[in-house]
C-alpha cells in the first residue's frame, strides 16, 4: 500500500486490514448502485451508524475503553456485509435491527472482537431471514428491468417511510432474485432452460445483473489476496467445492441442476468466498483446516440452495461450519517441527 504523506497517526495493523477490506468492497458497491440504484448507500450509512452506536454502547456497558475499539473498523465491515446481504429497498428498521443483533448479540455477548464463535454479520442475516421471511424476500428488480423510473430520492424515501410516489406499488418493482426464481421454477416442475428465459437472467454471459456485482466483488477479493489480507485456502476451497458439486450434477441433469457459473455468480457466493468466510476469528486457523472448512461451506451452500427451504445457503453454511471450526482445528494440527504427526508434540493438541 502506497502512503506518501507523512501521516502523523499511523493506522494500527487491524485498522489497515479493515480499511483494505472496506476498500475492496467499493467496486462491488459501485456496481450495486448501478444495478439497483442508490438505495444501498442509505442502507450502508444506516448500518454504519447503528454499528458504531451499538459498539460504543456495548463497550461502555462492559467497561472497555471505547475509542481504541470503535476505531478499529471491524464493526463497520460487519455492518457493510450485512447491508449488502439485505434486500436493497428493505425498511430502515430491518438493517438497524440486523446490525444491533450482529454487533450486540453475536459479537459483544460472546466477548467482543476476536472472541465471537459465529460470524456476526451472518448471525444478523440468519436472524432476519428466520424472523422476517416475507420482508427478506422483497427484492426489487434491477433498474434496467423497471418500466417506471425510480429516482434515488424515491428509493431513500421508500426505505425511510415505506411510501412510494403516487401510483407506484412495490409489487410493480418487485422481482424474485435469480436464486429464488430458479428455486420456485423448479418446485413448479419447470425445466431449467425454460426458467432461464426470464427477463432477470438476460445479462450477457453472466447469469444475471447480480452477477456483475459478484464479478466486482471478485475483483475486490483478488485485491485482498494480492495484499495478503486474506489467504487463498478458504476462497479457493469454497469455490472449488461449489463448482465441483454444481458442475457434476449439472452434467448429470442440466434440466434440474443449475450450472456452476450460475451458482458462482448468484446470491452471496463470491461475497461469501472472499469477504465472509475469510473472517479469521470464526474459522479454523490451520492450513488444512481452512481447506476443509471452505470446501464444506461450498458443499453445504450447494446442498441448501438445491434441496433446502431457503434460496441461498451461504449464511447457514457459514454458521454451521463456524460451530465445527474448533473441532477442525483440533484434528488438523500440523506436526511440530522435527517430529512426526501424532507423536508427543502433536498429542497435546488444543483442548
Amino acid at each position, binding site marked *: 500500500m502506497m502512503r506518501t504523506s507523512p501521516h502523523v497517526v499511523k493506522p494500527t495493523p487491524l485498522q489497515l486490514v479493515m480499511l483494505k477490506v472496506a476498500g475492496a468492497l467499493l467496486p462491488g458497491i459501485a456496481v450495486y448502485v448501478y444495478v439497483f440504484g442508490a438505495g444501498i448507500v442509505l442502507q450502508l450509512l444506516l448500518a454504519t451508524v447503528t454499528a458504531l452506536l451499538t459498539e460504543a454502547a456495548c463497550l461502555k456497558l462492559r467497561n472497555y475503553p471505547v475509542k481504541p475499539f470503535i476505531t478499529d473498523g471491524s464493526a463497520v465491515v460487519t455492518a457493510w456485509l450485512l447491508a449488502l446481504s439485505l434486500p436493497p429497498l428493505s425498511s430502515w428498521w430491518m438493517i438497524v435491527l440486523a446490525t444491533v443483533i450482529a454487533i450486540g448479540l453475536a459479537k459483544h455477548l460472546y466477548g467482543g472482537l476476536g472472541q465471537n464463535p459465529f460470524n456476526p454479520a451472518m448471525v444478523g442475516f440468519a*436472524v432476519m431471514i*428466520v*424472523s*422476517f421471511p416475507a420482508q427478506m424476500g422483497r427484492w426489487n428488480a434491477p433498474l434496467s428491468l423497471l418500466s417506471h423510473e425510480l429516482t434515488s430520492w424515491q428509493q431513500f424515501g421508500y426505505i425511510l417511510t415505506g411510501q412510494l410516489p403516487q401510483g407506484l406499488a412495490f409489487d410493480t418493482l418487485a422481482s424474485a432474485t435469480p436464486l429464488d426464481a430458479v428455486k420456485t421454477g423448479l418446485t413448479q416442475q419447470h425445466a431449467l432452460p425454460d426458467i432461464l428465459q426470464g427477463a432477470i437472467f438476460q445479462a450477457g454471459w453472466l447469469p444475471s445483473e447480480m452477477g456483475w456485482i459478484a464479478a466486482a466483488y471478485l475483483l475486490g477479493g483478488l485485491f485482498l489476496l494480492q495484499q495478503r489480507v486474506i489467504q487463498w485456502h478458504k476462497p479457493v476451497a469454497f469455490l472449488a467445492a461449489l463448482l465441483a458439486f454444481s458442475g457434476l450434477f449439472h452434467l448429470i441433469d442440466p434440466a434440474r441442476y443449475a450450472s456452476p457459473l450460475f451458482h458462482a455468480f448468484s446470491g452471496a457466493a463470491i461475497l461469501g468466498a472472499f469477504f465472509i468466510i475469510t473472517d479469521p476469528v470464526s474459522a479454523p486457523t490451520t492450513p488444512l483446516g481452512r481447506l476443509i472448512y471452505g470446501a464444506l461451506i461450498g458443499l453445504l451452500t450447494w446442498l441448501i440452495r438445491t434441496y433446502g427451504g431457503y434460496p441461498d445457503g451461504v449464511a447457514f453454511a457459514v454458521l454451521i461450519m463456524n460451530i465445527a471450526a474448533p473441532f477442525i482445528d483440533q484434528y488438523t494440527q500440523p506436526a511440530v517441527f522435527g517430529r512426526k504427526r501424532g507423536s508427543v508434540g502433536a498429542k497435546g493438541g488444543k483442548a
Partner: protein
Amino acid sequence: MMSWQDAKDIIYNSIWKQNQGVVAILGMCPVLVMSNNIINGVSLGLATSIVMLISGAAIAAIRDFVPNELRAPIFILIIAALVTMVDLLMNSYVHDLYLVLGIFIPLITTNCIVLARAEAFASKNPVSQSALDGFFMGLGLTLVLGILGAMRELVGKGTLLSGIDLVFGPAAQGWVIHVIPAHYNYQFLLAILPPGAFIGLGFLIAGKQALDRRAEARAKAAARLAPPPAEPQAAS
C-alpha cells in the same frame, strides 16, 4: 417438625440460591420448549411442582425401607405414578391446555429436577422438609418458566397471557394483554422459535448473577462502613 428458620432456608434455597432453572440448569428440555408463553410455562411449572410436592413427601416417607441399590427404579416408579395422575387430571379438567403441552406432561417423569431432588434431598430428609423442598423447587422452576415465557411472548408477539382461554375457558379470551396493539401484526419470530429460548435463558442467568454480584458488593460495602470489630479481621 421443622423450625421456621429451616423452612425459610429451604424456600430461599429453592427459589433463589439453587434455582433449578437458572443455577442448576436442570430440566432444560421442557424449559426451552414450553416457555414460548406465560400460560404454557407456568402450567407446566405448576404441574411439575405438584408432582415434586407429593413425590418429595412420598419418597421421604419410605426412605428408610428403600434398599440403596434399588432406589433409582423405586423413585422413578413413584414419580411415574404421580405424573400419570397429573396427566389424567389435566386431560379431564384443562383438556385444551393438555393438548398444547402434549408429550411434556408425561415427560415430567424423566425431568432431571424431579429425580435430582428425590435423590439429593428427599432420600435424606424428613417428610415435611422434603415436601416443602420439592414444592418450592418446582415453584422456582415455574418462576423461571413464567419470566422466560413472558419475555418470549412479549418480544415475539407483543402479547402477555396469550392462550389463557385454554385454562379458564372461552370467557377468558379477552384477558389477553396486547402490549403492542393487535392490528400492527407485530411478530419477531426468533423469540418464539427455540433460539429465542436459549438467548432468553442466557439473559436470565446473566441477570441473576448480576443481582447476586450487586448484593455481594453491597454487603461488602456495608461491612467496610460498619465500625471495625474488636480484633483484627482475617484477610479474606
